[in-house]
């Protein structure tokens, strides 16, 4: 299976602009208050270093008023910049004893931010071009067949991936809502042995499948701890063939059989 194809499928699932995009959806082209401000400044053909604060503030507030649908999260961010604009204006109105140097210009705080943001916007445009070209270049990023994967070139999963998967299973389990009549004690040590025996017999196991077939939450938890322990001791290796696919657990070839049984895991 081609990695690129996988990526494509995954992307199309994730991309929909939601949650964060609250205000952006309504303002459509503006990523945020700074974006809007830059737009207004450009429209007026104003030099970023010499912004007539009063005019820009008026334009800015006008724009916000037109968009009267309120999304509190986003609103706060837009209002913050509005407040900053008004603050700057008030600073500029204060009488000064001597002509302000450029360093003292109350607008500096805003100009610095706008300049930095402007740079990022340009960088985005350039990266977007690169992205477009790159999306049209396809490479052969296939994975080796799993059968002879003793050399383990596969994507080794990190703790976050494992934990994420684990919680996914736990959520599913929660919904099942079993009534356990009599709890069975599960010891870490027994479980360790059981997992290793299982792996020795079957070669590998499917992470998702294994945990979802555990009887109780407790047993699943203990199994998960055992698995982490085994990975830490470099007895087994957890491998994900491709992003967002199931995680497979393999016994490491170089592990010493049964040596682990001597260790105690309380």
């Amino acid at each position: 299976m081609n990695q690129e194809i996988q990526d494509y499928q995954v992307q199309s699932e994730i991309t929909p602009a939601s949650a964060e995009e609250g205000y952006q959806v309504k303002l459509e082209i503006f990523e945020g208050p700074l974006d809007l401000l830059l737009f207004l400044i450009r429209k007026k053909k104003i030099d970023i270093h010499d912004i007539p604060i009063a005019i820009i503030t008026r334009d800015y507030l006008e724009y916000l008023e037109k968009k009267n649908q309120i999304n509190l999260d986003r609103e706060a961010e837009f209002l913050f910049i509005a407040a900053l604009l008004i603050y700057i204006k008030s600073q500029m109105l204060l009488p000064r004893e001597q002509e302000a140097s450029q360093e003292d210009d109350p607008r500096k705080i805003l100009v610095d931010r706008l300049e930095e943001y402007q740079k990022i916007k340009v960088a985005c445009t350039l990266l977007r071009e690169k992205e477009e070209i790159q999306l049209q270049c396809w490479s052969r990023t296939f994975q080796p067949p799993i059968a002879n994967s003793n050399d383990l070139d596969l994507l080794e999963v990190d703790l976050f991936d494992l934990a994420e998967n684990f919680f996914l299973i736990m959520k599913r389990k929660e919904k099942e809502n079993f009534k356990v009549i009599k709890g069975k004690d599960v010891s870490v040590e027994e479980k360790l042995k059981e997992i290793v025996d299982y792996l020795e017999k079957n070669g590998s196991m499917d992470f998702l499948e294994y945990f979802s077939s555990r009887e109780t939450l407790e047993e699943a938890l203990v199994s998960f701890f055992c698995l982490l322990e085994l990975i830490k001791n470099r007895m087994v290796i957890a491998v994900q063939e491709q992003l967002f696919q199931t995680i497979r657990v393999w016994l490491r070839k170089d592990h010493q059989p049964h040596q682990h049984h001597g260790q105690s895991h309380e």
Partner: protein
Amino acid sequence: MNEQLKAILEVLIFISQEPLTLNKIKEVLGEVPEEELDSALQALQQDYADSRRGIQIIQSAGGYLFATKPEHDQWVRRFLQIEKKSKLSSAALETLSIIAYHQPITQAEISAIRGVDSTYSLKTLLQKKLIKIVGRKKAPGNPLIYRTTERFLQYFGLNSLDDLPKEEEIAKILEEEKQILS
């Protein structure tokens, strides 16, 4: 030009599972003068670029690999029955650029530059493995620190972070825009 060396390099790139790095080449070939290697690699790249081939050799994330040329995109997609690969959202791209230029960086620092909250974008980028968490900052609240990944380089066809658009390049574009406006 050492034609045999060129052919061997072609083979290695072809057989490699990931972008073929110079280190790996040296590991396989042993004693080959650096200049000879460089010129052979360049010549090989040139061969593919020049000829009317559909394949090219690109440098990505510190190594060489085969990839199709962009102009044949539609045929690949037709073959794989894929409409079009989706791009990053503007918010995600903006967040990613900030991380790329300012890494290592925390979420608060990113949001300060953007002027908007970046929680969702960060989540998307982490899921796509374009960024990673590299630790926590020794500051109040111990916020997480983010960096871009190898996958980020590959995604944009960059060889290393040095390949990011340069400050001067950006300044030049801004200057040009200013001239057009006034």
